[in-house]
């Protein structure tokens, strides 16, 4: 075990996975000589060569489309979208081709690719370097959408994603790249896709959160613990497939649910979580399901105070916890 950041966990997992299997290769904008805009693939070009570390033009639909062709033709490409905000030109390829090729061909072809996408705000990236995209893709059957938040989960799920037989959108919160540290095994290991984890046990209410919001929820839970409010914090890790059992079991235990996400609230991923719990655990609830999420403005503004207002804060989460606990 060694202590690593999320970024180191990704770097080391990719490195080891490429060492282990020649089918694994990476492609994206400046992933080679530059080592990626976040330096996730630093030194990969020297080690693996340009055949396996493929610098592409600034053309996301080609990055993903080419990746699909390679994956369906026997390789295990890991495509990097430099910022999740840039993924939209590739939306058609992801939804129309990657997610459907197994289904439409009735299992003759499949698409074992990973699309890595750094997402999320709080880094003054403004309108095109801050957004969350999970709701768009979690909606699509045929895709798996992962959003690990700790170095351990990131390493284990990335390795699982690379060897998963179906397309995976792998979301990496930009602000967490260097913010969080944790123990990671030295050797490659897999975590099961579709299994969440209770990151903090509690009896009074359940918080469902991922990404930066998970860490903020843990901080808020620590604050209210001083006043005797015991919050359970559930990290789904995998947005689709969802660990529905873990979610329902937790809500049945605490009888209250608070969902946190930084994406725009309306139609966001948390709306589906609320719908599932309302449908399947209604009689176990002692309070309305509550959400703390981003406002319905088109994108995160650059201005500091406006950005901070957009992002759910630890204070916002703490207020919501106290309100729900008192209900």
């Amino acid at each position, binding site marked *: 075990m060694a202590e690593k950041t999320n970024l180191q966990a990704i770097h080391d997992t990719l490195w080891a996975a490429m060492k282990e299997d020649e089918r694994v290769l990476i492609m994206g904008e400046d992933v080679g000589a530059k080592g990626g805009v976040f330096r996730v693939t630093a030194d990969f070009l020297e080690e693996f060569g340009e055949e396996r570390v493929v610098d592409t033009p600034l053309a996301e639909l080609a990055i*993903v*489309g*080419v990746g699909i062709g*390679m994956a369906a033709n026997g390789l295990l490409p890991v495509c990097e979208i430099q910022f999740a905000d840039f993924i939209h030109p590739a939306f058609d*390829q992801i939804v129309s081709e990657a997610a459907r090729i197994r289904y439409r061909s009735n299992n003759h072809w499949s698409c074992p690719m990973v699309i890595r996408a750094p997402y999320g705000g709080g880094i003054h990236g403004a309108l095109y370097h801050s957004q969350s995209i999970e709701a768009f893709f979690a909606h699509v059957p045929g895709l798996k959408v992962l959003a690990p938040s700790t170095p351990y989960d990131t390493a284990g799920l990335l390795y699982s994603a690379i060897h998963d037989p179906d397309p995976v959108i792998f979301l990496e919160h930009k602000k967490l790249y260097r913010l969080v540290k944790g123990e990671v095994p030295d050797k490659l290991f897999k975590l099961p896709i579709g299994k969440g984890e209770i990151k903090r046990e509690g009896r009074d209410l359940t918080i469902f959160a991922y990404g930066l919001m998970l860490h903020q929820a843990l901080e808020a839970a620590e604050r209210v613990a001083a006043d005797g409010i015991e919050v359970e914090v559930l990290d789904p890790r995998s947005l689709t497939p969802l660990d529905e059992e873990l979610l329902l079991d937790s809500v049945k235990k605490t009888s209250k649910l608070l969902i946190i996400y930084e994406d725009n609230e309306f139609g966001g991923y948390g709306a589906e979580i609320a719908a599932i719990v309302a449908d399947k655990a209604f009689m176990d609830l002692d309070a309305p399901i509550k959400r703390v999420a981003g406002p319905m403005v088109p994108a995160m503004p650059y201005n500091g105070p406006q950005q901070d207002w957009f992002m759910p804060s630890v204070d916002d989460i703490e207020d919501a916890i106290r309100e729900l606990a008192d209900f």
Partner: protein
Amino acid sequence: MATPKSDVEHETLSADLSTDKLVEWYSRMELMRRFENHAERYYQEGKIAGYHHIYSGQEAVAMGIFAHLGPDDHIITAYRDHGPALARGIDPKPAMAELWGKATGTSQGKGGSMHLASRKLHFWGGYAIVAAHLSLATGIALAEQYKGHDTVTVCMFGDGSTNNGYFHEALNLAKVWDLPILFVCENNLYGMWTPVGDVSAVSDVYKKACGYEIPAKQIDGMNVLHVYDEVAEAIDHIRAGNGPYFIEALTYRYRGHGAGDIEAYRTKDEVAEYKEKDPLVQLASYLADERDVDRSKLETLAKEAEGEINAAVEFARESEEPALETIWDNIFAAPFEDRGSVSKGRS
């Protein structure tokens, strides 16, 4: 690199093909044409639903190009895919059954007309998002190059595909990476219902490839011998490791864009003019006049093709519908948890 002059050797290449081989082509092209006649008929009768796009008139393109390919080469095409599927050797029975949406179809009824495919034949299928498959073709070819395979990936598309971003991104990368890919634009003069020149800055679409320094040429796509001869050079170029090549085959679709097209955008005279150059008639005349094949033999072959398609129709008619539960099949590699339930919501 515009329109490189054809190699003289290639111009006479088809002359060296055996008469038996050319007769085989003729049979296959009859099969393609008759498949479409029946597809239209059963569409009108309501046995075939949805959207389908008839290949009649364009047979020489697929036939003449695929004749150069081996079993390891790859083909990917757009939604006008019945003809290319048969030209590659997909059995008309599962192809017709797929149009009927039956369990015996090429994808057990999941794909329908626009997605005929066979992994075994490296026929990736028809793709229904205009030009989206050009990116996939680029990836297929890149994987072939990475694996060190000595293959050609043939990517076919219509003129309408050449006006969007997919096209340009794919051509750019194919050249940047010198991929073993043959781009084939089947220019049938209309992108859906719009004449090429109305929405494309250049009507001679091969010129678009020149901007990427991909060797390109425009060929007569109505004559299978011309297609075969002209494409030989392109295939040689690719197999020699020189990177991509672009063919614009001038051709014509006898039927409209899709089923139900009233064809207000073109004249009956124009259709008649192209039918004068019909690829089947041209090949039949060549076989009769230059190869001394008896006309009655060709008629017999045509009847055999008709019989094969009739059998395909009977096969499709008698095949079972796929079980409703198979809607859950093959969403992911592992069986879907909800499998077995056909309720639209969660169980």
